[in-house]
């Protein structure tokens, strides 16, 4: 699979390393070139400096041929803009956006985007851990 990942923070770099390890072709976009240090030293995929919510940057990243696009920066609105460009302008089949605000995530899920909320997931795991301890 060809996968484009926007945002090379902890989540983005971890996903990039894992998908590449499984034999996929990965392009990672981040505005800060220093963030690429988080990728494993043997990472073979491409890195691109720029805004993943800019149509021309996404084009340069080859999103038009991608099977999947992940918007994983810490900015909800950036992620929602980037993922909607990937989905509606470039027609990428699988588009996933990280949206911290659970309400916003729900609204955009209703509009047909795949979203996940680190807030909800984190709170749930913390809660589960407590239940297990009791």
């Amino acid at each position, binding site marked *: 699979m060809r996968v484009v990942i926007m945002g090379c923070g902890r989540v983005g770099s971890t996903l990039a390393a894992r998908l590449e390890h499984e034999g996929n072709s990965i392009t990672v976009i981040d505005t800060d070139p220093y963030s690429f240090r988080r990728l494993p030293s043997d990472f073979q995929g491409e890195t691109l400096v720029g805004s993943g919510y800019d149509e021309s940057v996404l084009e340069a990243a080859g999103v038009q041929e991608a099977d999947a696009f992940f918007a994983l920066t810490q900015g*909800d609105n950036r992620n929602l803009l980037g993922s909607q460009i990937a989905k509606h302008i470039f027609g990428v089949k699988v588009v996933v956006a990280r949206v911290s605000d659970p*309400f916003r995530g729900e609204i955009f899920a209703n509009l047909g985007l795949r979203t996940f909320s680190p807030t909800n997931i984190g709170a749930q795991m913390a809660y589960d851990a407590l239940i297990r301890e009791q």
Partner: protein
Amino acid sequence: MYIIVVGAGTVGYGLGLELQALADHEVVLVDRDRSRAGALREELGEMVVHGDGTEVVFLESVGARRADMLIAVTGDDGANLVSCQVAKHWFKVGRTIARVNNPRNERLFRELGIDSTVSATGAIMAQIEFDLPEHTFIPLMKLHGSGLQLVDLHVIAGSEAEGAAVRSLRLPENSIISLVVHEGGAPEVPNGDTVLRAGDEIIAVIPQEAEPEFRRLVAGATVTG
């Protein structure tokens, strides 16, 4: 009418001032920068509220449910898009207007149902095009909801339209030439027999996607912009 303006930068501040002067409207100007909102509140009063205009809970608190219009004019296209989408789909706000900072995003915003988009780049380009002889095509305005636009262009010598009667032109589907201004300034509502001359100015309504075809027909191959 109840209007929410998101983003109190230069554009939002100016809008706030203008709208406040219209007595019939209730206006709220929101900005997520606390000190910016605080400073403006000193000047404009209670209409300025500190908060994130892309957040559902905050928009609810300023009464988005009863808003007639939301105008998102921050310098961040992501924020403007999300704010308008949340307003439209969650709060059922009747009319949403977004500022588009990157002109390439205009198409996406339209496809996603934002009612109007305003791009400074586009507006300035339209102004420049009035003065550039090689730019003979000026998009005047987009018609609300229909995908049609009003355009202004000049008939170029050597184009298919030059010397042709309006009825013999193969116009793109759903296109209408509404007005012809002949050289010298005489306006005419054209009928099928009206003959177009080089230098005539045409006001037409055309579908946005028919723009290249219409340009080719009337302005010939000399247009590059």
